[in-house]
């Protein structure tokens, strides 16, 4: 089920990126490129800027320097279009204690104007069917995480930005996630994952953020 995609080999790229959190320069002179079907693993010690880079890619934080481009056009030119083509799963699960699993997913799908018939497959993929009518209040940490990840499937988007997605997941759920990522990539989707654990992803590029730490003099 590969999507016909235009030929340029590189679709999502960043060049000479620099990021500041508070008064501290986190990284600089960072380049990356991601082709359709590609996967990028962000590694590095705590505080090396994995989450910051993901937030940059999502357009939540403007870069201090450098540009991010999609198909050659800077994302800053059309932020709404960029938001429309990405899913960002951060550290927080964004769940409401009083809404049920089905209501939460239905809202997420509607928020991105996706047809509601995608909700059920998303529920099944992450084995949430039995919990569909449960309020999020009673879910365990791993179940909450699975529900947050089901957002990826509830509405289509070519770019997935995942921040430590396996936190709290058991082995079976991690496999579900990897299967979903593999299917997404085989359809021409892209994925960027910040992770501490080695994830067995086929042909994934690794971007080690330590290499882009600012030199002392610059900070």
């Amino acid at each position: 089920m590969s999507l016909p995609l235009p030929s340029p080999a590189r679709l999502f790229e960043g060049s000479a990126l620099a990021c500041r959190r508070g008064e501290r320069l986190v990284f600089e002179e960072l380049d990356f490129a991601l082709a359709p079907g590609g996967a990028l693993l962000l590694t590095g010690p705590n505080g090396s800027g994995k989450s910051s880079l993901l937030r940059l890619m999502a357009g939540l934080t403007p870069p201090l320097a450098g540009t991010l481009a999609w198909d050659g056009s800077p994302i800053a030119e059309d932020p709404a279009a960029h938001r429309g083509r990405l899913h960002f799963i951060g550290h927080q699960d964004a769940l409401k204690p009083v809404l049920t699993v089905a209501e939460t997913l239905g809202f997420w799908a509607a928020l991105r104007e996706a047809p509601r018939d995608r909700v059920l497959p998303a529920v099944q993929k992450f084995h949430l069917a039995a919990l569909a009518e449960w309020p999020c209040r009673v879910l365990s940490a791993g179940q909450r995480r699975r529900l947050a990840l089901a957002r990826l499937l509830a509405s289509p988007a070519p770019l997935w930005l995942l921040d430590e997605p396996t936190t709290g997941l058991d082995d079976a759920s991690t496999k579900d996630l990897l299967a979903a990522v593999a299917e997404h990539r085989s359809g021409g989707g892209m994925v960027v994952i910040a992770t501490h654990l080695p994830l067995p992803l086929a042909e994934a590029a690794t971007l080690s953020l330590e290499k882009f730490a600012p030199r002392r003099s610059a900070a």
Partner: protein
Amino acid sequence: MTAFWALVARDLRLALRQGSDAALVVAFFVLAVVLFPFGVGPEPQLLARIASGVVWVTALLAALLSLDRLFQQDYEDGSLEVIALAPLPLEAAVLAKCLAHWLTTGLPLTVVAPALAALLQLEGPGYLPLILAMALGTPSLSLVGAIGAALSLGARRAGVLLSLLVLPLYIPVLIFGVAAVEQAVAGFAIRPHLLILTALLLAALPLAPWAAAAALRPALE
């Protein structure tokens, strides 16, 4: 438009399930107004004289009390990030949240206001203007309040900061809301006051979501 109404529906559902929030605002409104006869004495002329002012001021304070839940919870649990990253413009998302906020606070306050005015011996011709002025004024309170709620997001002592930011901006609504009722009781035309309240609402409708969205973006960085 689906996304806009989905957000309104979600906020309404949340307000209904966590019913205490909306009920507390109305309870505060009732209780605060009921305190006045105890404070100033039960003399009907005196109460009638201050009725419209008391109802309006307490309605402002009740609305203020509910503002922190506009963005605070969504900000803390990460939902605001998801909403901000949806294709829906953030300005439209703010407008949707203001609409849901008004339906769960401004509207109940408008419904309860005549009963409280009766408690304070408001004179007959004042009731219809009170309802009309509240219906036109309370949406402005939600909209202007959204700016303050967005600005104070993540701040320490956000509640105090919020009242300092928002209460001065509520003064025009208060002035013309009270004037509409007083003029009606005195036998004058209320139309100019209602028109000014409408004008305030029409100005807040595009400006407040725009300003609140601008204030939310840095908070999400």
